[in-house]
């Protein structure tokens, strides 16, 4: 079984530019989550999809962040325009059931550096 894959693994962009992160969950996992870890701090929840629907996007920092999951398969997270404080590692995770009932399977993350 292929795991959760994220692309790219690293991205370095300048302030004001746009970046799109992609996540391919484990096949058959309806639940997909985005988390972010800023250097040395806690891993923060961004949002949760159930299939193609946004179940909870309460963790999205602001309207510069846009997440989509068209067709309920892979998901993208776009940051436009990027700011310095957006730097961090963005993790995607998927699960069969809701995250309270089954463990999350994480990708290796995308390390985003905004200069």
């Amino acid at each position: 079984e292929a795991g959760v894959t994220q692309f790219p693994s690293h991205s370095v962009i300048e302030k004001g530019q746009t970046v799109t992160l992609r996540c391919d969950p484990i096949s058959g996992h309806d639940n997909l989550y985005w988390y972010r870890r800023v250097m040395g701090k806690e891993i923060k929840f961004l949002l949760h999809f159930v299939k193609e629907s946004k179940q909870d996007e309460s963790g999205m920092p602001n309207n510069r962040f846009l997440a989509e999951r068209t067709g309920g398969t892979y998901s993208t997270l776009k940051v436009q325009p990027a700011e310095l404080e957006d730097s961090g590692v963005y993790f995607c995770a998927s699960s069969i059931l809701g995250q309270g009932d089954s463990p999350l399977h994480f990708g290796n993350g995308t390390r985003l550096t905004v200069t």
Partner: protein
Amino acid sequence: SQQGEEDPQALSIQEGENATMNCSYKTSINNLQWYRQNSGRGLVHLILIRSNEREKHSGRLRVTLDTSKKSSSLLITASRAADTASYFCATFSPNFGNEKLTFGTGTRLTIIP
């Protein structure tokens, strides 16, 4: 303030020794989960303990949960160099419509060969 806070932030021990990490949280929970992250990799689920459970074992891992103190501990026995990683606790709280895992800042464990 954070829901899950691990203690200590960093821990270095000799290979073969036991490692204990603690997690405190603030609100009532349905379950608490521990994850491991190796450098540059994603988080890997280790163990889930429900609010009505007090102790759980998985191989060399032992997790305890004290809901009265709102705390949990993760014990790794007979540590190995491969156990070097960051360990995170995550809590799942019964807040309908706002159900998500809340992670702490993690404990960085270093096993010295």
